[in-house]
């Protein structure tokens, strides 16, 4: 398994910690959003009601580190437990007019290959011993480079403060042996926290269980270490395509292409010199 903490130079370190967010049991209570705001003292950014179902925080940003998405679809509910007949029937609703409601708590993915960390010019963003990615707010000079570098649209610059902010996976709580505030507050265990390898096993079992009980839509997102970001430290079980939830279907860390970018820039610079030489050679006598 990929070990970003060791790659970052930690000789000895605790196991890589992560989130497994199982959206099939999310009830959209937003306890995670609230707990995150409270624990991390994140400023209020409440605006007007958006009309986007129950979602009024819209997306992850400097002041929203957990974001619950609400998607209303004209699709039948796939019920995983046929023995709960009363509730199941209630959930099925009208077969002629199917409706389902997807809810998902999004968060920073703490990528194995993190673009935000790669492009940060001050070293403010760093890899922790837990394999997570954290901003040091006393270093950040607000250059904003991490913002468009993130393939998931997680990190953002806080307007009145000028610095970049995102989920720290409650680095302070982890250091004290506690679980992050969002996972602690989640009443359905939709947000599970633990060593990443254990979470991956648990997630694989859960998908299999859902497939067996007829939820064919269930799929994991971000769990694969062979994906474009080397796998996410926070991965998900989704019930539809990633883009339905506002997630990129095939994210790739931008620095994957950086060696080629530098080569092209070098070639362009040399061509610039050659062009200038030609300009003088054919510049005529003065």
């Amino acid at each position, binding site marked *: 398994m990929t070990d970003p903490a060791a790659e970052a130079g930690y000789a000895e370190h605790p196991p890589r910690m992560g989130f497994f967010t199982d959206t099939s049991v999310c009830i959209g209570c937003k306890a995670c959003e609230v707990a995150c705001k409270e624990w991390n003292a994140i400023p209020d950014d409440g605006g007007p009601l958006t009309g986007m179902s129950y979602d009024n925080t*819209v*997306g*992850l*940003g400097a002041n929203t580190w957990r974001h619950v*998405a609400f998607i209303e679809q004209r699709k039948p509910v796939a019920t995983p437990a046929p023995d709960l007949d009363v509730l199941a029937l209630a959930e099925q609703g009208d077969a002629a007019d199917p409706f389902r409601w997807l809810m998902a708590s999004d968060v920073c993915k703490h990528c194995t290959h993190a*673009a935000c960390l*790669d*492009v940060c*010019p*001050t070293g403010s963003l760093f890899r922790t011993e837990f394999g997570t990615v954290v901003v040091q707010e006393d*270093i*950040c*000079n*607000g*250059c*904003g*480079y991490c*913002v*468009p*570098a*993130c*393939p*998931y*649209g997680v990190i*953002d*610059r*806080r307007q009145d403060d*000028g*610095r*970049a902010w995102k989920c720290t996976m409650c680095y302070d709580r982890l250091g004290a042996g506690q679980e992050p505030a969002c996972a602690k507050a989640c009443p359905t265990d939709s947000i599970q926290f633990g060593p990443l390898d254990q979470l991956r096993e648990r997630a694989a079992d859960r998908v299999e269980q859902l497939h067996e009980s007829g939820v064919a839509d269930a799929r994991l997102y971000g769990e694969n270490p062979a994906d474009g970001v080397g796998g996410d430290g926070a991965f998900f079980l989704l019930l539809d*395509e990633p883009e*339905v939830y*506002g*997630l*990129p*279907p*095939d994210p790739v860390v*931008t*620095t994957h*292409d*950086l060696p*080629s*970018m*530098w080569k*092209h*820039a*070098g*070639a*362009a*610079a040399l*061509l*610039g010199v050659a*062009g*200038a030489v*030609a*300009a*003088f050679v*054919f*510049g005529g006598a*003065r």
Partner: protein
Amino acid sequence: MVPDAEFTSYYGKPIINPPVWAVPDIPGYLFLGGLAGMSSVLAAGAQLTRRPVLAKSAKLAAVGGGALSVAALVHDLGRPLRFLNMLRVFKVTSPMSVGSWLLSGYVPVAGAAAVSAVTGRAPRIGALATAGAATVGPAIAAYTATLLSDTAVPAWHEGFREMPFLFVGSGASAAGGLGLLAGPVTESGPARNLALIGVCAELLALRRMRDRIGMVAQAYDTGKARKYLRASEVLSVLGAIGAVVGRRNRIVAAASGAALVAASATTRWGVFHAGMISAEDPKYTVVPQRQRLRNRSEAR
């Protein structure tokens, strides 16, 4: 023109967070860096071939452009007083880190070259500084392309192969244009040539990029990006024609030079806005990634 592909999104909201960089700071920073870097090359050539007026004006353009470029970057920071934190570390994975170090070395050297040229003092140190600035100059003009491309912004990232050629070309046409604007017609032959070469490189690189990047190219043909890039094309062509036709006329040459400088600036504004457009519309993120997944599963 590629037709709009079917795609899904979350209430039409962008997938990536759009850049927080402001206009005119960041497009200005791109433009001024290109102008400065290629002016240093022009200055060295002018000095070698004994064109003192052209050399002096190019050196002033180099230090002025370089210093203003740094000022624009610092002004755009969320915490400008922490600018020096850029020099805490050196990271090749961060083109902004590389650029900060390049600029910190380049601006003082270009400054020394300019001071020596204006005062006539310490000509040896001035010559050395001129050579030094000309060595770093092309890198100053090129790295900003890598800076933009090294993001998840589709219009910038997808175009990473052509972007440095576009930027160096744009820098060359700005530097040459400024040489035409400032220099006497007896000295400005190389400036005119540099501008013409720059215009060709710029137009070719942009054309090639738009042909290669598929549906993402639409961002370059939308809204403000389209407006600025059209303006740039018109100014480039007018400037190039004027530079050739009016090569013996001081006024026509100067007007052509001004048009070329403006063309270079509008190119950067256009590229900047294309990036913003592609960041704010989720289709530019979703459609190419879906295509990539399809290609991969077909290849299997």
